């Protein structure tokens, strides 16, 4: 391969096919005289020529037209097959015009008559120059082909516009992403992709950046042909001519819709987790506060209680809270529990703790309804107090008495969406209730406060029915709190 630096040094490697030694001498003299330093590979016949061609250590071929048993046509033929890029010059004493034209047609770059060898150095110089030019052109073509293939096969969108922004080229990936064919967009402005979700400022900034000759990088919220929205991360570069004027813009764009979605999901998952951790910590601190308040409340309101009674009462209430928390873990919701299921285990637990009477039984008619833990916790404390007091209103076990006492717990959702809980109890061994046992007495004060103030509900007592005993009715809505997790 000839390099321009070698040309400047005027060193050339030349293959000469010539059966006349005087002619060979004349040729080399001509070239040396013109300032060339020669590295001559001289062959005299077809065999030598073929061998030399195979070795390939030359940059130009000078071939006599007529040899014994061989000629320039045969030599040219071999060259065209093995090394078409090497300039082939025919040097002849006897070439006719027709043959010369034929040689040129077949790929010889020139011919020189032996009687005019003065032209030889000039012809060689021109042929070598043209060969280099051809090589460079070929290299550029190869690069262009490579680039073109890369752009066509690329998994990013490539858009080329003219200086006015009119689309000149889009690659197949652009078509794949947007749904617009090459023909549909060429000649149009890329604004056909605008979703309208990005403000004028956004495009102003884009154009200001590009028109000042700088690359613009950003994200487009664009619209496909079918109307679907998508996100593209783009780099747009202005292409300048030699005088610094913008002649084209090239945009390389990557569809990041999926990536953006994943990122958003990730962020939302993390923030959900953060929220959950915060709410669980809050719940734990709050429960400690409630337990502390229960202790202090007892101490402030019932200082006369024995330590035993005190501990029994408080641990029962702590258990009520724990049972609600346990119901939470049974469900798949982190904020709500089934009120029916909770009331049942709560009542059974209180019954166990206060069992002193084989004549007492507890029955249920509970509707399944989901309530917030924020509602269930105070309700549990209130029910705990009401039930404990109801159980305590019966005298202790007397196996000789055959009357069975019953406490019945009913829960249901009313048409108004209010939740109603009834605690009905039969008369104590057939005796009438008296006013002291009514709801508003001191014993049930905390339950009343819980229902009225914390649940913003109502609590009433009905002891008018002579046969059935009395019924405590609690009504409330589960709408005081918003769901946090």
């Amino acid at each position, binding site marked *: 391969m000839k390099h321009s630096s070698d040309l400047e040094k005027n060193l050339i490697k030349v293959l000469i096919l010539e059966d006349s030694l005087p002619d060979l001498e004349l040729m080399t003299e001509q070239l040396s005289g013109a300032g060339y330093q020669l590295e001559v590979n001289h062959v005299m016949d077809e065999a030598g020529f073929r061998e030399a061609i195979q070795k390939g250590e030359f940059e130009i071929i000078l071939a006599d037209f007529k040899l014994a048993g061989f000629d320039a046509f045969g030599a040219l033929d071999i060259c065209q097959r093995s090394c078409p890029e090497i300039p082939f010059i025919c040097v002849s004493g006897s070439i006719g015009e027709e043959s010369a034209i034929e040689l040129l047609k077949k790929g010889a770059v020139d011919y020189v008559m032996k009687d005019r060898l003065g032209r030889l150095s000039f012809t060689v110089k021109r042929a070598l120059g043209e060969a280099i030019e051809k090589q460079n052109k070929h290299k550029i073509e190869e690069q262009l082909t490579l680039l073109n293939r890369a752009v066509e096969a690329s998994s990013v969108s490539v858009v080329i516009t003219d200086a006015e922004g009119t689309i000149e080229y889009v690659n197949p990936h652009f078509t794949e992403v947007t749904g617009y064919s090459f023909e549909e967009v060429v000649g149009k402005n890329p604004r056909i992709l605008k979703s309208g979700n990005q403000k004028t400022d956004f495009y102003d900034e884009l154009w200001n950046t590009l028109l000042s000759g700088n690359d613009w990088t950003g994200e487009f919220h664009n619209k496909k042909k079918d109307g679907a929205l998508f996100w593209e991360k783009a780099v747009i570069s202005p292409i300048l001519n030699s005088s610094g004027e913008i002649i084209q813009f090239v945009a390389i764009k990557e569809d990041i819709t999926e990536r953006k979605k994943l990122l958003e999901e990730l962020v939302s998952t993390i923030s959900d987790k953060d929220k959950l951790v915060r709410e669980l910590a*809050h719940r734990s*601190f*709050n429960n400690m*506060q409630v337990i*502390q*308040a229960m202790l*202090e409340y007892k101490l402030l309101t019932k200082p006369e209680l024995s330590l035993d009674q005190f501990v029994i009462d408080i641990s029962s209430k702590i258990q009520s809270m724990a049972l609600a928390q346990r119901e939470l873990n049974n469900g798949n919701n982190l904020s709500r529990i089934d009120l029916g299921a909770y009331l049942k285990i709560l009542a059974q637990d209180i019954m166990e703790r206060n069992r002193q009477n084989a004549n007492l039984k507890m029955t249920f008619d509970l509707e399944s309804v989901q309530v917030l833990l924020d509602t269930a916790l105070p309700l549990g404390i209130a029910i705990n107090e009401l039930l404990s007091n109801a159980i305590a209103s019966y005298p202790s076990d007397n196996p000789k008495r055959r009357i069975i006492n019953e406490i019945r717990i009913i829960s249901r959702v009313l048409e108004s969406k209010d939740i109603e809980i009834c605690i009905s109890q039969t008369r104590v061994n057939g005796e009438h209730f008296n006013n002291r046992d009514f709801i508003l007495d001191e014993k049930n004060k905390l339950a009343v406060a819980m229902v009225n*103030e914390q649940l913003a509900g109502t609590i009433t007592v009905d002891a008018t029915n002579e046969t059935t005993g009395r019924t405590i009715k609690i009504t409330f809505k589960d709408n005081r709190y918003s769901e946090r997790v």
Partner: protein
Amino acid sequence: MSRNLKILIVEDEVLTAIVMKKKLENAGYQVAQSVTTGEDAVLTVKEMTIDIVLMDIRLAGEIDGIEAATKIQNLREIPIIFLTGYNDAETKKRANALEPLAILIKPVEMTDVVNILERIQGDNSKKG
């Protein structure tokens, strides 16, 4: 020393509110009102003289304690003590923006509250 600060308790846990009220009264303070929602807290401040607000952050109702405190401060500059089960940086940052006297994390020692009140009371007496 007369402890004439009028206190508003904003606490959705009724039991906690009752205990706080009793303990403050035992310490010689007046609890002017005790409410369970932020909305009621704002109404109370509009309707009566309140010198200090003990504010829970998680409340029943639509607005939380920080939002309620913001509305109250827009009405009048009333010192606020937050009492909350939230111990996270974000909540504390939001609460601190209102420059409260303190943010006390539950379970709260009422002596801590009383100590802050004593200090305020002392400052008020000197001014008076």
